[in-house]
């Protein structure tokens, strides 16, 4: 059992790491956008710009044995969790060297080794899955935590309510992380929920809950530490609403007719990377050299991932029907 720390380590090393992770995500998503416009990545692409503090604040707090269920906007969660950037990008290219053999693409990153249960294109679809994973652990009597990420849009789905109820009823170790970015595709929260204070809904299921500023990586981490600890110790679910914002459109092909530029600019001032970096600079925790090194490392990692994906191979068409069912060992 690891020693529990309610407060995040505010060591320079840790801070630099958090900053690097957020920058790494931001640059990666940016590269994905570029590759998408060049038709290297196809289908749908949902980018995480602006929400980095949530993945970076929550995911590292989980233990390797814990489980993660995410949404179609999951590149960040996968990368922070430890899915190789090479494998992630190759997956988005559709190459068989991708983490899901190229079969899933951007919305379906899976990784067994890091207990990463996908990537899900059905809004709310991952919630019952997380209940099941936690149920298995409950029945086995261990204290593994399942973190389930979802957006404000999922709150409208019946599966949200069914899952919260089951988690509370059966006492399951589920950490519900609601990434409330105020929009479900093009529908604002205000136009979709009678009660827009999402974490209040958890109370109806007698689930402990908390709201946190999702643009502040330190705050998110602190809340996540408390939450994960509580879930693991109490055996009960916890609901963490992270209030955040996506600076890019819902997906690449989105004219954003549903929100105005003034609002976006307003949130851009709260950009989690800019804020954190600024705070670190003013606290003298970071030097220009550090930043240069971070950018260089990140650029190199991305270049390597692109090269890997470009060099990747296509799964032979003859293999199409493999892995629809399990294969018996020869």
């Amino acid at each position, binding site marked *: 059992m690891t020693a529990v720390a309610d407060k995040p380590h505010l060591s320079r090393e840790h801070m630099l790491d958090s900053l690097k992770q957020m920058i790494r995500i931001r640059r990666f998503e940016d590269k994905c956008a570029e590759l998408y416009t060049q038709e290297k990545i196809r289908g749908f692409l949902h980018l995480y710009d602006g929400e980095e503090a949530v993945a970076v604040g929550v995911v590292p707090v989980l233990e390797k044995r814990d*489980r993660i269920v995410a949404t179609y906007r999951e590149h960040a969660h996968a990368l922070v969790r430890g899915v190789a950037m090479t494998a992630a990008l190759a997956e988005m290219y559709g190459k068989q060297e*991708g*983490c*899901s*053999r*190229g*079969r*899933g693409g951007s919305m*379906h990153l*899976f*990784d*067994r080794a890091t207990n990463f*249960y*996908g990537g*899900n*294109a*059905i809004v709310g*679809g991952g*919630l*019952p*899955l*997380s*209940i*099941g*994973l*936690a*149920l*298995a*652990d409950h*029945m086995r009597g261990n204290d593994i935590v399942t973190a389930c990420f979802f957006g404000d849009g999922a709150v409208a789905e*019946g*599966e949200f309510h*069914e*899952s919260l*109820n*089951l988690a509370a*009823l*059966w006492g399951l170790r589920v950490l519900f992380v609601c990434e409330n970015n105020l929009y479900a595709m093009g529908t604002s929260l205000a136009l979709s929920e009678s009660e827009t204070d999402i974490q209040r809904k958890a109370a109806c299921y007698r689930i402990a809950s908390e709201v946190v500023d999702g643009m502040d990586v330190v705050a998110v981490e602190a809340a996540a530490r408390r939450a994960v600890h509580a879930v693991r110790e109490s055996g009960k679910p916890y609901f963490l609403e992270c209030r955040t914002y996506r600076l890019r459109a819902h997906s690449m092909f989105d004219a954003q007719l549903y929100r105005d530029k003034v609002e976006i600019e307003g949130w851009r001032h709260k950009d989690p990377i800019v804020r954190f970096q600024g705070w670190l600079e003013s606290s003298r925790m970071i030097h220009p050299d550090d930043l240069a090194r971070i950018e260089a490392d990140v650029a190199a990692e991305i270049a390597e991932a692109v090269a890997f994906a470009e060099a990747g191979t296509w799964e032979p068409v003859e293999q199409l029907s*493999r*892995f*629809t*069912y*399990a294969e018996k060992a020869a």
Partner: protein
Amino acid sequence: MTREAASSDTIEVTYRDAMREAIRDALARDDSVFLMGEDVGRYGGCYAVSKGLLAEFGAERIRDTPLSESGFTGAGIGAAMAGMRPIVELMTVNFSLLALDQILNTAATVRHMSGNQFGVPVVIRMATGAGRQVAAQHSHSLEGWYAHIPGIKVLAPATVEDARGMLWPALQDPDPVLIFENVMLYNMTGRLAKDAGSVDIDKAVVRRPGHDISLITYGGSLWKTLDAAAALAADNIDAEVIDLRSLRPLDDLTIMTSVARTRRAIIIDEGWRSGSLAAEIGMRIAEQAFWDLDGPIGRVCSEEVPIPYPRHLESAAIPQVPKIVAAAKAALGRA
């Protein structure tokens, strides 16, 4: 394979008893097996299949759920992905529609979509079929729909032996298996070997060998088809009756071998006619046994209506012995 048993080694059981015994046996043999669904515990099961199991195995393993089909089916899927062997009981196929997203978009797709990293060894049992005058929303036969989906397997036990024997191999299967139990079969009795155990879950079986026509069917329609075969015999028509047992995968070999011999085929399927499983089987016969046919392929399905409430209309809406007999005779030009 079906096993012969001397009558002294057999007992008379109901289909319901046989299914209960299958569940009990699985629970006893494997700690990772548990049953989850609405009213499976305290109520004893909507069709009394799980009666007594709560007392025997406790509330963790006989797990009553709220009315959250999508939630608890998804939970069963997730638990299976994490290494348990859940039996999810959806009260009927009618309510399974609420869980269709989890069944199709998670259970059926995860293995392929994750590049074989995760499988879903879940078993989902559902009651299906009409005949109890419970009207349109409670009388569907949608197993044919489910048989359309790649990534899952679909079974339709029609005998006490299959009710007893299909569950364990289904639980051992690394992929999702759906088991459809026709509501009219629960009270049916049959003789079962005392030491009855597992049966295969991918083969069809010839229940009545015959010479003149192949009657291909499954589930609740099996017994009507056997009755029809008896009636046809009185008219000198020797019908072969095939029990499909597995709807996905279909056992093409057994079907085509039969049709090659009899040269005529009728499929009896309680689903609605259009786009039915019967249509799929008919097409396979046309693809694989065309040159052996001596007449058009026929089918007896439910009429294209929502199942009505009054007895005479409900009866008229679903396959019945006279319709099967008439179809067989027409196929032989003996209208």
